[in-house]
């Protein structure tokens, strides 16, 4: 059970090797966390990550999960929620893809959209249902500031996140006032595997800052959290930047 101060005892991570998610799990491990389930594409590749969490005194299971394989999602969710409660589901999978390729290759663009948006929708609906039956829990979804103002440099990724963000907000509205809490997390640029080789954007931050924002958001039952927090004010400002200026800023 989540306690009164937002500390959770169990977590299921979809995209269990995500660096942002792992930083969050480690932060939770220093609180009340007892059990973590890492759901990953390739379970063999996650053994090191699992051991590091075990070293913090948390019991860890690694299970197979592919966001793109939407057919498998209903059975996957049913299996996750059969025996014990899950206090927190962290939806952290995602790919940026290669925008230059996606500019002209519809198949690649669809691959990005399919994983980030369709894959998430497909797994979030049964998860929300299961949590509602369980009567309590938090679903935290890794969206992005890219959902707020899409950039030329990664607009297919941005549009997939915009769809995911809108879906997450709708889900949050659906469960408002119940025991199920749904939250969209909008990080700015975070130095992780995903952004290796990219030029850091202004307000670039670290996985620890995002993890802290997620944990604080769970506690406050926030609907949207930004990391770093200043982006809460920066992004609305960027949204109203006229398009001709925006095009120059992000050329």
């Amino acid at each position, binding site marked *: 059970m989540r306690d*009164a101060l937002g500390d959770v005892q169990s977590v299921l991570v979809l995209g269990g090797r995500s660096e942002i998610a792992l930083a969050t799990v480690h932060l939770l491990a220093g609180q009340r966390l007892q059990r973590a389930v890492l759901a990953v594409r390739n379970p063999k590749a996650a053994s090191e990550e699992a051991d590091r969490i075990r070293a913090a005194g948390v019991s860890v299971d690694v299970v197979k999960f592919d966001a793109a394989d939407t057919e498998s999602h209903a059975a996957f969710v049913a299996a996750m929620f059969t025996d014990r409660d899950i206090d927190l589901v962290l939806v952290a999978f995602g790919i940026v893809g290669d925008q230059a390729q996606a500019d002209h290759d519809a198949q690649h663009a669809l691959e990005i959209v399919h994983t980030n948006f369709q894959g998430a929708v497909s797994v979030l609906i049964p998860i929300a249902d299961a949590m509602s039956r*369980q*009567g*309590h829990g938090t679903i935290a979804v890794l969206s992005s500031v890219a959902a707020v103002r899409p950039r030329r440099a990664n607009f297919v990724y941005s549009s997939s996140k915009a769809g995911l963000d809108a879906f997450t907000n709708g889900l949050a509205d659906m469960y408002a006032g119940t025991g199920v809490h749904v939250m969209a997390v909008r990080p700015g640029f975070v130095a992780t595997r995903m952004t290796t080789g990219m030029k850091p954007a202004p307000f670039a931050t670290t996985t620890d800052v995002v993890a802290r924002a997620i944990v604080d958001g769970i506690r406050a039952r926030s609907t949207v959290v930004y990391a770093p927090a200043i982006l809460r004010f920066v992004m609305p400002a960027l949204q109203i930047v006229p398009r001709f200026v925006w095009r120059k800023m992000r050329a």
Partner: protein
Amino acid sequence: MSTPLVRHETLQGWGRTSPSESTVYEPDSEFQVPAILEAWESDGGAQRRGSIARGLGRSYGDAAQNAGGAVVSSAALSRILELDRAAATVRVEPGVSIEALLKFLVPRGFFPTVIPGTGIVSVGGGIGADIHGKFRHGSFCDFVDSATLVTPALGPMRISAETNADVFWATAGGMGLTGVVTEATLRLHRIATSQMRVDTTRCRDIDDCMTAMMDDSRGERYSVAWIDCLANGANLGRSILETAVHATVGDLPAERARDPLAYGAGLSVSAPPWMPNGLLNSWTVKAFNELWFRKSPKRPHRTTVSIPTFFHPLDMVKGWPSIYGRHGFVQYQFVVPYGHEHVVRIILERLSAAKCASFLAVLKRFETSNAGLLSFPMPGWTLALDVPAMHPGLNKILDAFDDLVLEADGRVYLAKDARVAPQRFAAMYPHLERWREVRARLDPNCALQSDLSRRLGL
């Protein structure tokens, strides 16, 4: 047999911190209860999530709710069944509130020996948490003569400390996890008037306060100290001590003495309008505490007041938890044995240093403990503090308090708790294993569950 009312509801405790969804049943006959428990009995899977009893929802945390499962409300089981004047006992259904009981009993010259700091508590909740009050010679279940308990495995059974002590003392303070109490007989105290004779003393600091509380020379029956948590340094623990006895007819002014047991409902006012939702910070708390402290005269003085005025001053402010805003608050209440007064002092100091705005801090003391396997009271000091849930780093602060309490062989109170770590809880309650054994006999399949039982692994 009729079927009970059913509805789906988001429930939370008084602190408003942990909402969850339950299917709420409102049986109006004890005979409906076994079927509810059976329908929700756990099969180890996630679908069947068990049941838990709920009274008036005045426990602060997650004791009287059951995410995804059933909640058996006692709202429609709230009749006073029988007063036995010769034996000084009353037989009631579990949903009867202390307030309703007082209204019925006081004019007849009786008083429910132990009553808590609010009248809006049910008899079932009184047993489930083995509640205590300003009376320091016992807690609620010490005055429960017998009760009917509907258990999952053994069905309805009569329980009392004489006939089946193990079940009785597992139920006293057992947080509803041994069964649903559907009826109880309480032993009463005889009173001559409906008034309390109260002595009020201001205490300079915490040592002064504890010394005054240990002084039994006034022969008082009830005592409580209200501490100004924001006073620090030399003023740390600045407080107002109230001690009281039931007034005798001779204590009353002539016009009251004609009808000494007359009992009017207390006045009630809404939360002060100058305190908008969520506007609770160290400034408003300071102002409140300053007012509260100043309202009592400098010199010790004696007054005669009504029972609710002495016992339930908070009930006169309707909806006061709203001042903590939408994130709610937790109440931290612990007890430490005599000889560990320093724990009370250190906790007050740290709270003051952390600028933790505590609206209320109440210090009481106990003379005895009982055989309740999970009962809270033990001889010693008990301090209760309200803190806003969003105070930064609160769980770490409270974990450190838990360690201090644990080192002193003390414990925290489950009726107030919403966040203690399971390992620390287990260390605080040395009879936990025995309680688990009794529970396993009454409920081998965990048909009784609550958010609290899941959180603490009970």
